[in-house]
């Protein structure tokens, strides 16, 4: 597929239009399903899957080395991918580097990761840890322009993969150490100029301010939306999850629901106006960002949106208006909720807020799941999500009536159990669960029309039967899977690509 066709696809793409011969966006298409329509590779022949190539990338890595936690794009036989502050273009047939771009971020932010690039015509977009949006020429890797969009001294740090909708490059801020409000921003793909900015907490004259004690708390209220959202062209709505409120874990100075933190929001991509919201964790005190991919599902004659949220709840919404269809825990150990309110939003149990002497809560701050992307197969009707059943003691450490920053400590406990769950999207109930033998670590997921689910566990890369969860194939990598796997057709072969630490592994039926 050439770039003009990619552009056409992105301009008009319907939720069901995942292309076979490219992977042109963070989630493959706008829907967030991470579902490949390819069937060349399938449950019958996957046992013959073998390495095509593996390449280790060094680059100008900052301390800690290269970690490929972003999703590669594949367009016209070239893979474009990132690690923190690094971008590569690599020949998808050989794994050889075509070009490499590196710019070192400055500042004291945590050295986290980067989720990848966005593409518009022949141009790439990515964000740096120190909050610059950079556009590169996809052919050469040369920088076209750089636009700073948030202050690293306020401990904003950015990791999101830009999403391109028509002539809008959508990005967002990350970071929650310093009581700062989050933003989704739209920039001009030609010049980088700011088009609009939507703040994750309301100003004093905006709706939602009634869920804060006042402007002072809302201005410091967090909610950074640090994972790429999804888009419905028919509704012209961009759906994105927002992060936890600030101060982290201590709610005494921000009584109220704290909108629009820990929420799924629908924005108009042309104006940045909020159209609807659904709050996954009202008045969060456990750092449960609701940034997990809002997956768009067309089913039962309805336009739906599903999220397996970090707080352990599965939410199914009507994406035309944000109304709840299903709200149900998918984590059997979840113990912090008193049920749901009339809107399907969980009611937090005040007794499970962090306390000076500790409260026992499941899930931990790392969540029932986290940013590694889930997948949905319209073929099976199953929503695949990596989960951890674990517990922590939550301690409130800041007794001040006006706590600031990180105001809690967490002591992780033992005996955790990990599983890949396949949830019936209509009910949120597991059709099957693949229990892992070892705990910890959730990994990204890819579903394919070949009745396969790819994911990682430990240092294994694994293919499961999408209908039953049985292991069909596994292989050892040099590191645990660190990104969401992708698949595409190239020269008549179906490839599967996985990032593990500093190495990109590709597999095919050779």
């Amino acid at each position: 597929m050439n770039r003009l066709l990619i552009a056409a696809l992105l301009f008009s793409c319907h939720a069901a239009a995942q292309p076979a011969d490219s992977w042109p966006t963070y989630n493959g298409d706008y829907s967030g399903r991470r579902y490949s329509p390819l069937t060349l590779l399938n449950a019958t022949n996957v046992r013959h899957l073998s390495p095509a190539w593996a390449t280790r990338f060094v680059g100008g890595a900052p301390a800690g080395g290269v970690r490929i936690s972003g999703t590669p794009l594949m367009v016209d036989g070239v893979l474009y991918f990132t690690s923190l502050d690094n971008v590569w273009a690599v020949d998808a047939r050989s794994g050889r580097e075509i070009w490499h771009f590196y710019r070192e971020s400055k500042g004291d932010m945590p050295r986290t990761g980067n989720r990848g690039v966005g593409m518009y015509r022949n141009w790439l977009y990515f964000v740096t840890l120190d909050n610059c949006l950079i556009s590169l020429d996809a052919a050469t890797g040369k920088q076209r322009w750089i636009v700073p969009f948030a202050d690293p001294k306020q401990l904003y740090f950015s990791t999101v993969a830009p999403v391109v909708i028509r002539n809008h490059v959508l990005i967002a801020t990350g970071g929650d150490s310093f009581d700062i409000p989050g933003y989704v921003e739209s920039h001009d793909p030609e010049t980088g100029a700011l088009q609009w900015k939507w703040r994750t907490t309301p100003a004093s004259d905006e709706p939602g301010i009634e869920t804060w004690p006042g402007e002072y708390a809302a201005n410091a209220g967090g909610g950074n939306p640090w994972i790429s959202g999804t888009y419905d062209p028919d509704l012209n709505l961009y759906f994105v999850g927002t992060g936890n409120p600030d101060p982290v874990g201590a709610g005494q100075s921000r009584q109220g629901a704290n909108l629009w933190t820990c929420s799924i929001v629908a924005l108009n991509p042309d104006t940045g106006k909020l159209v609807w919201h659904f709050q996954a964790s009202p008045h969060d005190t456990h750092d449960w960002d609701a940034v997990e991919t809002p997956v768009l599902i067309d089913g039962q004659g309805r336009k739906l949106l599903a999220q397996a949220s970090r707080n352990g709840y599965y939410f199914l919404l009507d994406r035309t208006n944000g109304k709840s269809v299903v709200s149900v825990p998918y984590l059997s150990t979840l113990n912090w909720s008193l049920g749901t309110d009339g809107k399907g939003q969980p009611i937090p149990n005040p007794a499970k807020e962090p306390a000076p002497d500790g409260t026992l809560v499941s899930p931990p701050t790392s969540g029932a799941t986290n940013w590694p992307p889930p997948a949905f197969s319209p073929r099976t009707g199953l929503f695949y999500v990596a989960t951890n059943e674990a517990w922590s003691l939550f301690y409130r450490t800041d007794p001040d009536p006006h706590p600031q920053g990180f105001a809690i400590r967490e002591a992780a406990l033992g005996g955790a159990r990990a599983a890949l769950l396949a949830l019936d999207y209509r009910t949120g109930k597991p059709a099957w669960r693949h229990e892992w033998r070892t705990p910890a670590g959730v990994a990204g997921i890819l579903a394919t029309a070949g009745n396969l689910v790819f994911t990682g566990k430990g240092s294994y890369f694994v293919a499961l039967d999408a209908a039953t969860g049985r292991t069909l194939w596994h292989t050892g990598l040099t590191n645990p899977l660190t990104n969401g796997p992708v698949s595409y057709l190239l020269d008549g072969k179906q490839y599967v690509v996985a990032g593990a630490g500093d190495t990109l592994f590709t597999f095919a039926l050779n």
Partner: protein
Amino acid sequence: MVKSALLFAILAVSARGQQPSPAAIAGSGEDEAAVVRGGEAFAAQCASCHGSAARGLTPQTDLMRSALVRADTRGDRIGPFLRAGHPPTKPATLNETRAADVIAWLHAHLYGVAHAGASEFLNLLTGDPQKGREFFEGKGGCAACHSATGDLAGVGEKYDPPVLQSLWLNPRRRRAVRTVTVTPQSGPSRSGTLERIDEYNLVLRDGDGAYRSIALEDDEPRVEIHDPLQPHFDLYRRLTDAQIHDMTAYLATLK
């Protein structure tokens, strides 16, 4: 009398200034002595408007959320600001050294705000030791493996409450060796100590210490692991927070 004693206590605290935690000072890289001096100077000259921890008495006087303070690197912003005289009506009298101390103190506090591990635990010993003892000997099932005068003697002395509370809920692996029995559909079972396990491979040491590596599929062979720590993990689903605090309070008495 009582009133004046209380007032004196408050004044004594504010005269010292609210110091950042040792972890915050260490993490910030600031000199500890400078931070202590800075806290004293801040308490004397700044705290009446900015509060004892620089969080302000009003949103406008909150220095932890001040863009100027956050933008500062080793005094490059705050230094000139103070030198220009602040507040303008009655400027603080800080010489260069003392101003640098105040800046060090501010940076240590900023580090504490931004880092979860830099904050200190508050009082954990809120439970009822007697109820904890009853739980230990009764419903908790702890006495099946442990004794207050045996393996747990002195734990209240040895560990701080936060460590103690984590340890009894989630003990260190060390001596708690897991054993395993592996039974293939065709053939005899093999038992030993579990050395490692992942999704598709298991290693055990059998009775003579030999290394045995075994390939695993989803359901074959059958793997049964005995973990002596499992009773601790099994508690989580049924423990109340009050029981946790009672148990910790009881264990803290074992000195």
